């Protein structure tokens, strides 16, 4: 279980560019839940994900991952519990290393690394099995450099790498946004398949409201660094994009009212 409580984070504090990215953000994700996160630009989606991953440390608030307070831990000390796929298909893998070397890096995520050979024979079967599930023929190209693969292929491998070892939560940061529509659909399908098969707890940020409703079991909308609505189960069933837009506008309208009240 992941719980984030009252997270606050301001970038460039005390400068003219001061930007409060998280303003009391709270969210609890239960074991096995697949949450989709939407919100406009600057709503705090990426900052929230970065805060969970440890890439940024929050000013205040608390983040607990499976009973461990990780609020102050740097990224690499959380990595055993938090798996991640980036938006940029080139960011999740090392292009200068071979496919098997990338997978070997991922299979030791969050564990001690010693001086024994990194690419071990006993990994090979697991590597081939998981790569063949992609149907891209990559299981025959284990020794090829990652840089020879297309963006979509690399994102698919990133996804495999994130799910190669167990994690408390899988963070997906608009991981289909930089791909062409066909490849994006393939990677999304792969995502839901892996999450279902391995019963993973996942948090997926997306720009597409349609995508946010199609996959996962719960949808959360962020606005100005806070959760503005959170729907799951029956309320979420049959919901369409226009309903979501309605909800969003209602919320924004309320915000404006609040502001005018304050200013008036």
């Amino acid at each position, binding site marked *: 279980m992941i719980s984030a409580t009252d997270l606050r984070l301001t970038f460039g504090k005390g400068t003219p560019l001061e930007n409060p990215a998280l303003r009391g953000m709270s969210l609890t994700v239960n074991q096995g839940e697949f949450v989709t996160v939407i919100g406009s630009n600057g709503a705090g989606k990426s900052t929230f994900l970065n805060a969970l991953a440890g890439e940024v440390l929050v000013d205040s608030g608390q983040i607990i991952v499976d009973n461990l307070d990780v609020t102050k831990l740097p990224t690499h000390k959380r*990595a055993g519990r938090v798996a991640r796929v*980036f938006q940029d298909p080139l*960011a*999740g893998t*090392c292009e200068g290393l071979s496919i098997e070397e990338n997978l070997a890096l991922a299979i*030791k995520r969050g564990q001690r690394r010693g001086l024994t050979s990194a690419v071990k024979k006993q990994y090979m079967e697991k590597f081939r099995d998981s790569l063949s599930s992609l149907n891209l023929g990559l299981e025959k190209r284990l020794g090829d450099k990652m840089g020879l693969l297309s963006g979509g292929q690399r994102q698919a491998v990133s996804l495999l790498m994130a799910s190669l070892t167990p994690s408390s939560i899988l963070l997906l940061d608009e991981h289909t946004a930089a791909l062409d529509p066909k490849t994006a659909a393939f990677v999304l399908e792969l995502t839901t398949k892996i999450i279902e098969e391995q019963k993973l707890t996942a948090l997926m940020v997306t720009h597409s409201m349609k995508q946010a409703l199609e996959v996962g079991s719960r949808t959360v909308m962020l606005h100005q660094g806070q959760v503005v609505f959170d729907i799951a189960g029956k309320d979420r069933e049959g919901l369409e994009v226009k309903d979501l837009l309605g909800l969003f506008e209602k919320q924004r309208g309320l915000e404006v009212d609040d502001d005018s009240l304050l200013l008036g």
Partner: protein
Amino acid sequence: MLSNIALYGAIETGLIYGLVAFGIYLSFRVLDFPDLTVDGSFPLGAAVAAVLIIEGWNPWLATGCAVMAGMAAGAVTALLNVKLNILNLLASILTMIALYSVNLRIMGRPNVALLTEETVLTPWYDLDLAYHQVPVLLFVIVVFVALILLWRFMKSETGLAMRATGANARMARAQGIATGAMIVLGVAVSNGLVGLAGALFAQSQGAADVTMGVGVIVIGLASLIGGEAVVTPSTVVRALIACVVGAIIYRLAIAFALNADFLGLQAQDLNLITAVLVTLAIVLPGVRSSIAGKLSRSKA
């Protein structure tokens, strides 16, 4: 043409600079960390080894201490960068400058002669070999051992983590790799190799001198880049072989240039020749591929 002695001499120094090139490969290529500490850690290794040998230490033990001293210098540079957030290039310049004083302190004077002392080379002169062939034989063995150890390390879990740190730090962190610790370890090992090179250089040349580090970084880079132009560094082992090949080619090129009377070059032209060779090594691969590109286009 080159005399036999000049030829073996060039190979001998080439092998020593091969070790420097290993270190520079580790910092510049693997970690993407432009490290100029080497200009200080090379004479540091020489100074530590020379002083300890004069104190009567076993020369191999003294050489081992030179490696440790080099590693410590590298660790200081890396810590300045990782812990104090000083730009990597500047951090290395700071350590390099500081080492000048440290080296003078260690030696107590600007240079220490080793001509009459027992060095790592002494027992090898009993072999039935010409005087100028002995260092080449010993250094071939040292470089070979260093190459195998580095290659195995790069293929290990920790080595792979280090390569990921230099190639994609964000991804490395997400995989649970302590990137700061990897930079400290890598730059330390890099300067340990350079310290070893300095220690061997002092013993084969018969002296340690505080100015012997000037331009080591450029020679190391020349070896690295030149080697990469000759041996395509598509795998770790090829990249390491490229370092040695590049260093030997570089020393041979220098020896030929200085021996070719028609060029009229003299020993004091060494740094000028070095700069020209480095420029050529950097520019030529680009020229070659652009010519290849034009040729294939004209064919199509």
